[in-house]
């Protein structure tokens, strides 16, 4: 039995649109120009999130489900759907401007409020850069941004100006090896920063970093840099958000102390302990260090083939310090042998 939807007053239409899923709203917007306009005008800003990796798929996340818009190869496949319990797929015609244009169409038409993930993967920098510029202009939140280890290094270098203007709130991951003269400054730090080739990330940046979680691999930091950072951390009032730091650097060695301790820095007493945040990101056998205000941190610095500093700031609400039973068991087995 048909129903004359457009005769509903706008408040009712708004309610119906609110209860539609992303595929329904998208298809409605394709029914006519008038419908598309109605959808744009009446779709309220939702808690839906969108993911774009520059390719031929755009995903919208609604509560626990995801809706994937795939580029169809043939017109006969348009609007073909596969609906599952959590994952849903629909083949559609992408606009002439490709995924970037579709992305903008979807956030405008469906009233999407934030971006869950954007990622630069092979061959996608142009599309991602186009969308990123618009998101930066709109000051729209991007929860997580990932730069993959792509070949178009110079394109990514050129893109970094736009990146600095983006509102990345939760995580920034970078797997790219930048050229030696590369330099980049975050205007605002996301909650977590993880960089696999971080030789460009300076000690001044680390000292100014407001992230909660920092992971830097292939860093250019030496013992002195790490000592400077930890001495700064010890002062009352510094790094209020900071919880976890992991720095891998070939320049960490046993020639000079860090926090007046010779390297390696680790707990050599028994029992062996593990310190973790809610059971994750455990540091095995760290030593306890104390900030001037009494805050406790746990520090371990390994030297050798894999020189790495691991540092965790304890919070009684989530930090677990426990004896490592597996260590004791393995000792027992060794004794028996």
């Amino acid at each position, binding site marked *: 039995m048909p*129903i004359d939807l457009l005769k509903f007053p706008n408040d*009712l239409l708004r309610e119906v649109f609110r209860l539609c899923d992303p595929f329904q709203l998208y298809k409605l917007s394709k029914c006519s120009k008038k419908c598309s306009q109605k959808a744009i005008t009446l779709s309220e800003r939702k808690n839906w999130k969108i993911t774009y990796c520059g390719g031929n798929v755009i995903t919208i996340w609604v509560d626990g489900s995801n809706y994937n818009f795939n580029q169809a190869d043939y017109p006969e496949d348009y609007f073909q759907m596969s609906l599952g319990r959590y994952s849903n797929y629909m083949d559609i015609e992408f606009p002439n401007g490709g995924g970037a244009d579709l992305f903008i169409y979807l956030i405008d038409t469906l009233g999407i409020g934030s971006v869950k993930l954007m990622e630069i993967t092979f061959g996608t920098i142009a599309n991602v850069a186009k969308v990123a510029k618009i998101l930066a202009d709109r000051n729209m939140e991007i929860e997580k941004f990932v730069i993959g280890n792509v070949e178009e290094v110079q394109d990514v270098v050129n893109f970094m100006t736009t990146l600095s203007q983006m509102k990345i709130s939760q995580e920034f991951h970078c797997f790219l090896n930048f050229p030696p003269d590369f330099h980049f400054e975050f205007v605002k730090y996301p909650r977590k920063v993880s960089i696999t080739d971080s030789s460009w990330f300076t000690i001044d940046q680390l000292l100014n970093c407001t992230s909660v979680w920092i992971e830097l691999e292939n860093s250019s930091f030496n013992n002195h840099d790490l000592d400077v950072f930890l001495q700064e951390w010890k002062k009352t009032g510094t790094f209020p958000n900071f919880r976890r730091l992991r720095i891998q650097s070939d320049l960490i060695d046993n020639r000079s102390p860090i926090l007046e301790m010779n390297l390696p820095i680790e707990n050599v007493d028994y029992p062996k302990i593990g310190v973790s945040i809610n059971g994750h990101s455990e540091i095995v056998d760290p030593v306890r260090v104390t900030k001037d205000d009494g805050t406790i941190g746990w520090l371990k610095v390994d030297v050798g083939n894999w020189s790495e500093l691991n540092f965790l700031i304890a919070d009684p609400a989530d930090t677990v310090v426990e004896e490592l039973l597996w260590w004791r068991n393995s000792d027992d087995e060794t004794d028996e042998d």
Partner: protein
Amino acid sequence: MSSTEQGTSSAAPAEPTTAPESAAAPEVPESFYYVHGKDKVVHKVSAGALQHSALIHGMISNLGYTEEQAKANPFPFENIDGDILQMVVDWCNQHKGKPTPPEDTNLPKQKEKLFDLVLAVNYLEIKELLTYCCKQVAMMVKGKSPEEIREIWMIPTDAEDEAAEKEAKKRAGKEAAGETAAAAGDAK
């Protein structure tokens, strides 16, 4: 519990609910009100059931009608068909004093009446029922193609919209011309 009456109402005063032995205070007898739709069929509904409707609840909250006064002054909803009002009253009775569960099995099923039901429920401001009805409307097109959606929701194509717009303009032009001619005739 309320009852539905045909024609004019002749309901007896509500019987007080039997209080459990352990209860300390006797329960206050439930008050009833009367509503009718376009067909003038009067429905007797308890104040408890009517609480679902923000509109009616607002109307009755400070009335303090006696049973006779309520019977003599049924609320007229001339813009709502009788069968639609019956559905709404039934739903309100079934959900008196309790929230609607997420999967409500006691909801109106007649899809052919959905359009009018949505408008009535929206007018009467019954939020939970409105959400359910709108969900039903939305579900009508789940998994359908744009062409099917256009049919189910009676959405004109761009060409039909343009033709209708042209027609409207033409009609407006004719009407304006007619008015001008009439004004000129009057002037003569």
